[in-house]
């Protein structure tokens, strides 16, 4: 095999990934190597295939071509090393479980089939909840939590999963300021532990502040690399195009960028 191999230290390597729903290609020829221990923002306009990219990595949508390697192996073999935070709307929040139950779900993979959730794992779940500042809400039913709290429960679940590589689908969507701060703190904690996070992100104004690596996506990778190299006017324009609203967003974002650099 002379296929380019990726050393086991690369958390995520994507080669030639093309994804199509029915006949419509939504992602074209994606080639990415994500370095370890970075907070990576996936940025792009609506319909650019950001969520699809994550789902294709997790085998949740079929790929038309290409290959995804997690720490040098196929995703199937490395499932235990990967954590996933889906979009909040993807589950029924009326479901009869408490916040602690949801967080404990993150440990199910380690517990294995049939065995009940032991005290050790309950403790782990409780600690994770504590880390997102929701220890007091552990026994609340999830529908009684606010949107931001629900998002934090999902994050705590990802923490409990204790993965090396995290995929997060819009964790910042429609959350309150407290939650946003909590998520950022958490991301940095994860980073300090040498973990890698891929985060789908909407708000251009905060990209610079939150992420040290950026993937600009618009059906194909426009540019990927360290934030200060990639998050520039040029590349943003080629990602978002020239509509007025997009331009003003880009302008705002750049102002932020300059401010941040200074």
């Amino acid at each position, binding site marked *: 095999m002379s296929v380019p191999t990726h050393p086991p230290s690369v958390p995520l390597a994507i080669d030639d990934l093309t994804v199509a729903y029915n006949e419509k*290609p939504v992602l074209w020829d994606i080639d990415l190597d994500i370095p370890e221990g970075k907070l990576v923002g996936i940025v792009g306009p609506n319909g650019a295939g950001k969520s699809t990219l994550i789902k294709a990595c997790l085998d949740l949508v079929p790929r038309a071509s290409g290959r995804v390697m997690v720490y040098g192996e196929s995703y199937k073999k490395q499932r235990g090393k990967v954590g996933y935070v889906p979009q909040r709307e993807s589950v029924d929040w009326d479901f009869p479980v408490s916040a602690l139950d949801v967080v404990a779900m993150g440990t199910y993979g380690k517990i294995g089939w049939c065995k009940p959730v032991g005290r050790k794992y309950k403790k782990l779940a409780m600690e994770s909840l504590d880390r997102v500042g929701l220890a007091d809400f552990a026994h609340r039913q999830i529908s009684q939590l606010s949107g931001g709290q629900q998002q934090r429960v999902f994050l705590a679940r990802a923490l409990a999963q204790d993965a090396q590589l995290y995929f997060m689908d819009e964790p910042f969507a429609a959350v309150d300021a407290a939650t946003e701060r909590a998520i950022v703190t958490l991301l940095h904690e994860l980073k300090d532990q040498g973990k890698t996070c891929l985060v789908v992100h909407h708000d251009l104004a905060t990209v610079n502040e939150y992420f040290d690596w950026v993937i600009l996506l618009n059906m194909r990778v426009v540019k990927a690399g360290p934030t200060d190299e990639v998050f520039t006017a040029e590349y943003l*324009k080629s990602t978002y195009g020239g509509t007025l609203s997009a331009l003003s967003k880009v302008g705002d974002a750049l102002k932020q960028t300059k401010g941040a650099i200074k």
Partner: protein
Amino acid sequence: MNVDAWMDFEIWDVLFLKNYNTRLVVLSTFFLGISSGLAGSFLLLRKRSLMSDTLSHACLPGIGLMFIVVTLLGGNGKSLPLLLMGATVTGLLGVLLVTAIRNTSRIKDDAAMGIVLSVFFGLGIVMLSLAQTMGGAAAGLESFIYGKTASMVGKDLEYLMWITVVTVILCVALQKEFSLICFDENFARSLAWPVHFLDMLMMGLMVGVTVVGLQAVGLILIVAFMIIPAASARFWTEKYRLMWMLAGAIGGLSGWVGASVSAILPRMPAGAVIVLVSGVVFVFSMFFGASRGVCKIKSRQIHMRRKIGRQHFLRAVYEILDAQQTGGNFTVSIQDLLEKRSWSRKQLQKHISRAKREDHIETVAGNRIQLSEAGYAEAARYTRNHRLWELYLIRFADVATRHVDRDADHVEHVLGPEIVRQLEEELDTTLHGMTPPESPHCIVTEGSI
């Protein structure tokens, strides 16, 4: 159940409806098929198909109750209009209850339907068991559960004709209203349309068809009448008008054919045969439907995967040749190709043999392949188109998502010659567009907007 009294009839008698009974049954099921096909289309489009199941079960207590009340009052408990009236009342009540439960509690649509269905059906069984104690007259009531096509009377046909006429008239008169409500209820509301009224009208049609057809085919099989023709029609077309017409036609024809078959063959209950006939139509449509059939979609997928594969392969070859700067010498080593993309040796072999079949490859010698003249031209074209597309996605990123369903092959078609010319200029094509431009990955995009 069904008596095989029709065995003696000649097939021709059945086909030409010479016998009164056959005529009655065949025409009744024909009309029932048309009207249920039409009414079922709305249910399918609104993803509420199983509502028909709930509704038909909810009719039962009305029938039982009406029978008991009328008999106690000294009337004829089996009077068809009265029984159907009872069925309509509880049927509508059931439909309203589903909506009420869904809107006022955490119980979801499916469970609300399950609750109403099972409880009303249980209540119906209670009523029937009580009616049974009132004497022999109640014996026929069970036909509402299983259907008794053979025992249909002239009144049934008359009602079925009327409901069909009403359904067709409403569908023709209110086609744009109904279709908009199926597609986007809130928009219809913003137009200040009486959405509630139209909704009730649609539900009313469904109730009417169900109630009238109940005795003919029974409360379980009527569900099939409502769902299967509409679902079959959906595989053939994306146009709603055509879909309605097809659903009506499939329903009507299944009714006609099924009833005829049941008249010709011994011991074939008409309702069940009709459902099987429409089931066959459904399976056929699901596989061979012209617009959403499984075969059609699979073949489109395979076609697309091949096309992507071919484009990747030829582009990879072209890019290697381009890098080698060996224009005239068209050979490329397999090793280089393997390194270029994430192909396994086996996949690459497949691409090569396919390219050979398509005359894109001249020779394969040892570890090197050589493109044919045509193959080189094709590779150049793909590469050029691909780069044009990439540039377009960058230049017009805001509008580009509209064209995601196009591929590199259709660049002129989709974008129009004007934009393509503009892009080509930008790509600095000097050699008559045949030699592909530099990859835009390294093109600076300043002043692009």
